[in-house]
């Protein structure tokens, strides 16, 4: 590295030295910085964050309803509603796979300039993917948890009238409910993160020149 300390005046107390808390957390490790960037990106890229959130929200709701109906509604009278849940869920999952493809393209497209700058400054693709993975992880986690809370509220407030859902909700059944919720969250997060990352890495591989030239 070339030392040119003498030629660059340093003025730490300059009026412009204050940043708005973005990225410049001195003392953070590289992972800490990437994490911080991922979290701030959620705020900066609101549209793509919102779309990922909505997707996670919808998938988690449908998956949760299927899991609940399988675990709790073992009475023949509920067969029709179970079939409805299954149909809705399968449709949502097929649709979400397609939507995730579009979202991944959008994700990369809205960050083209940013990624181009990072690439010319020597940031590795793996670091970019790590940042993207963390960002999608937090959004889908929030979306999935919200979706489950929403379903529980809907059932509790009898918007959907499912009388046996929470009847005799004993400790083992409550544990089972928590387990189902955890499984659902895990499934949604894994689905969103892995599928998006595969697509983003493929798109990133074929588009480095475009990224560097910063085309919109």
């Amino acid at each position, binding site marked *: 590295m*070339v030392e040119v300390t003498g030629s660059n005046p340093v003025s730490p107390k300059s009026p412009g030295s204050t940043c*708005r808390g973005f990225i410049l957390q*001195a003392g953070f490790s590289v992972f800490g910085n990437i994490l911080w960037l991922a979290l701030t990106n959620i705020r900066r890229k609101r549209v793509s964050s919102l779309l990922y959130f909505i997707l996670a929200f919808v998938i988690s709701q449908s998956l949760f309803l299927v899991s609940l109906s399988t675990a709790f509604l073992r009475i023949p009278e509920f067969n029709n509603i179970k079939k409805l849940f299954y149909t809705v869920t399968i449709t949502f999952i097929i649709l979400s796979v397609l939507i995730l493809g579009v979202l991944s393209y959008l994700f990369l497209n809205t960050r083209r300039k940013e990624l181009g700058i990072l690439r010319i400054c020597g940031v590795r693709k793996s670091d970019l993917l790590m940042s993207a993975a963390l960002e999608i992880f937090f959004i889908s986690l929030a979306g999935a948890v919200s979706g489950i809370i929403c379903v529980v509220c809907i059932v509790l407030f009898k918007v959907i009238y499912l009388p046996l859902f929470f009847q005799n909700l004993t400790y083992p059944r409550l544990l089972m409910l928590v387990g189902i919720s955890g499984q659902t969250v895990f499934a949604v997060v894994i689905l969103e993160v892995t599928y998006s990352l595969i697509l983003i890495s493929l798109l990133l591989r074929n588009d480095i020149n475009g990224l560097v030239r*910063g085309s919109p």
Partner: protein
Amino acid sequence: MSIKVIEVTKTFARQTGNEYVEAVRGVSLDINEASLTLVSGPTGSGKTTLLSMIAGIIKPTEGEVVLNTVHVTVSSDRSVSFFRERFIGYIPQEILLLHDLNILENVLFPNVFHKKPMKQLKQWAIGLLERLGLPDKTTCFPFELSGGEKRKAMIARALVASPSFIIADEPVSELDQESSGEILELLEEHKKNGAAVVVASHTSLSFSMPCDIYHLDHGRIVDYRKGGL
């Protein structure tokens, strides 16, 4: 430490049809420490492509670029990126600044991924911005700046980590004479301190110290002057 470009050719496929364009054809050059190299040539002569290959951003179709010991065509993205991160400061031709970050954040933004002391870099960045005539613009956003000021911010971003190789693609294209002079002076100062500076320009630049001049036309080197002014 050096960068060797050995008989590189870069071919791009056109968007429509099966036509190919040779942007750079059989170019060789050596870039050593404490050297000043000017790549000149008319628009579309392949300067940007050549500089992108020198920086290891794009790989040549034929030939080889050796970044010290890293062979770009056969090395992993990891090792090429590592070299670029540590030793290369690249100033692109286009204005590449993030509109939702202020100038200081823009200058420091790429270092988020690097193991560099952010506090020190921040002080460096402020010093550089002051040196480039933007002391009161550190908290401004890019849309509040003129084209020339944006370019200066990009130059500060490339120089903030004191790279060993500075690759500048049309660094003074939107600047007035005074600002151009300042930038060229700054680049010469880095050269004096041991950095290798490669500048591409379609106009003649008035460096005060000798530099190697490669003149490109249609992707080929048509003229070479060692130590020309």
